[in-house]
């Protein structure tokens, strides 16, 4: 196989990339606050502790074995020949980051980026499993995500894997492109959230005997909205660092990435606010917040390759889709997803991937292709087809894989808390103390009597 070259980073580019990577944990902090605010008060401390544990575990597992599967452009990989074309299926790195000099090289920056962003992916299912997902089971599920599902797909997209090589091997534009992680972080996390929501089932009292869902509102809108602001800052770093490391964006392009990311999130939040205002008479805080994060999730893939007007369009569609998706999952499909994780991250992420195929204009050859794309230098014919192949892989491989892994885990170690735990709240049942001990802020109004 022709070795794939990593992007050449100047010293200034490396410094900018490091700064951007260091912002990524803020995205995790924001998602944690959103998940906590959208859950019940009786599970708030549990939600925050779980977020901390999952980010910690994801970082450890990723360093132990995740990067060994993910790898990076130009690094060793396992390759098979399919129809005479080389398909890179997984990286061939040693465990524990051995043979990787943590010296600011692009590969070391990619490992650092992966260690922090896998925590973000791990937090997404926590929103879907709120109020009923045992801490130990969430940790075990995260180990599977950080040690296998995420690195495998990330190798295909960011490590010079077969999806990235679709352009070189089969003339599909530049191959599957995702600069900031709409697919490898958001959609992988969102589809895992869907699998978790299916396996755990709905919260007790969520659906009545007639199948109609009860409204169980989030307990703290301030946490939710502050989480949105933190996530915004984190996403600016996430998208910029991802575009520099995995899509060959020059450091100066960070300006357009910041503009596009912000425009997409802003348009999405406004679209969600307007839609909820028109439908319900008043703008809905939690759905508007979900729209904001949906816009961020959708912005990631194409942030470095679209004009501001296209970023606005991506955001408007994401923001309009999220409230309807939340309603569809809750009312029609009976998926109890308190944090809206599936609607925000899976739907938003998949839309972001498709939007790149529709709106992206590439300045030149990307680092993860070994030949000029069809259409000549900078040409992008077939790009939409490459993006569709990526979406098909997420739905046809990642979703069954993550469901099967979590289903098996559930057989060995039941993931749902006992009935008493749900009634008492996760804080008292699993931690022995509540988040708000001085306030009696919850009742049993949603519990079947």
């Amino acid at each position, binding site marked *: 196989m022709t070795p794939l070259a990593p992007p050449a980073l100047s010293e200034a580019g490396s410094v900018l990339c490091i700064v951007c990577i260091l912002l990524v944990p803020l995205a995790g902090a924001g998602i944690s606050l959103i998940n906590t605010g959208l859950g019940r008060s009786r599970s708030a401390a549990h939600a925050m502790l779980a977020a901390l544990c999952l980010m910690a575990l994801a970082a450890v597992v990723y360093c132990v074995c995740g990067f060994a599967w993910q790898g990076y452009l130009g690094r060793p990989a396992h390759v098979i020949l399919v129809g005479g074309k080389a398909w890179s299926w997984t990286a061939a790195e040693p465990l524990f980051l051995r043979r990787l000099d943590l010296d600011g090289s692009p590969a070391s920056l990619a490992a650092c980026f992966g260690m922090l962003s896998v925590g973000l992916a791990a937090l997404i299912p926590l929103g879907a499993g709120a109020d009923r997902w045992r801490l130990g089971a969430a940790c075990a599920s995260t180990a599977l995500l950080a040690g296998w599902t995420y690195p495998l797909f990330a190798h295909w997209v960011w490590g010079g894997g077969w999806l990235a090589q679709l352009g070189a091997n089969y003339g599909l534009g530049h191959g599957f492109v995702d600069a900031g992680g709409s697919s490898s972080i958001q959609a992988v996390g969102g589809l895992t959230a869907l699998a978790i929501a299916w396996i755990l089932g709905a919260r007790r009292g969520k659906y009545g005997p007639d*199948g109609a869902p009860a409204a169980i509102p989030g307990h703290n809108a301030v946490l939710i909205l502050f989480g949105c602001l933190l996530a915004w800052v984190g996403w600016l770093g996430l998208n910029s660092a991802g575009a520099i490391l995995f899509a060959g964006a020059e450091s100066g392009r960070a300006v357009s990435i910041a503009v596009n990311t912000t425009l997409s999130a802003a348009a999405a939040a406004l679209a969600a606010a307007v839609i909820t205002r028109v439908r319900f008479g008043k703008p809905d805080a939690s759905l508007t917040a979900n729209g904001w994060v949906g816009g961020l999730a959708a912005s990631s893939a194409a942030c470095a390759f679209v004009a501001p007007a296209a970023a606005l369009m991506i955001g408007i569609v994401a923001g309009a889709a999220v409230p309807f998706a939340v309603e569809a999952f809750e009312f029609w499909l009976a998926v109890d997803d308190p944090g809206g994780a599936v609607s925000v991250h899976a739907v938003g992420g998949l839309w972001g991937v498709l939007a790149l195929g529709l709106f992206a204009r590439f300045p030149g050859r990307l680092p993860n292709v070994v030949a000029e794309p069809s259409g000549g230098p900078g040409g992008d014919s077939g790009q939409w087809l490459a993006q569709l192949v990526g979406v098909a892989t997420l*739905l*046809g*491989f990642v979703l069954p894989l993550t469901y099967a892994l979590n289903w098996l885990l559930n057989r060995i170690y039941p993931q749902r808390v006992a009935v008493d735990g749900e009634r008492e709240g996760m804080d008292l049942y699993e931690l022995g103390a509540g988040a708000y001990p001085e306030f009696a802020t919850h009742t049993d109004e949603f519990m079947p009597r």
Partner: protein
Amino acid sequence: MRLIGFLLLVAGWILVLAAVVLLGASPARAAFVLAGIGVEALGLALVFRSHLVLRGSRD
């Protein structure tokens, strides 16, 4: 129903891969990729449906 749904998801993905590998740059390739995604949509619908049935039986 759930198992069939997941098998359809995987089958749709394999159809997409086969179209990319076996068919050159032709309109048929795009058509088969879209067909594969259609199979995946059917599988997804079945999985959602099986989840609804499962919840109904719990109630």
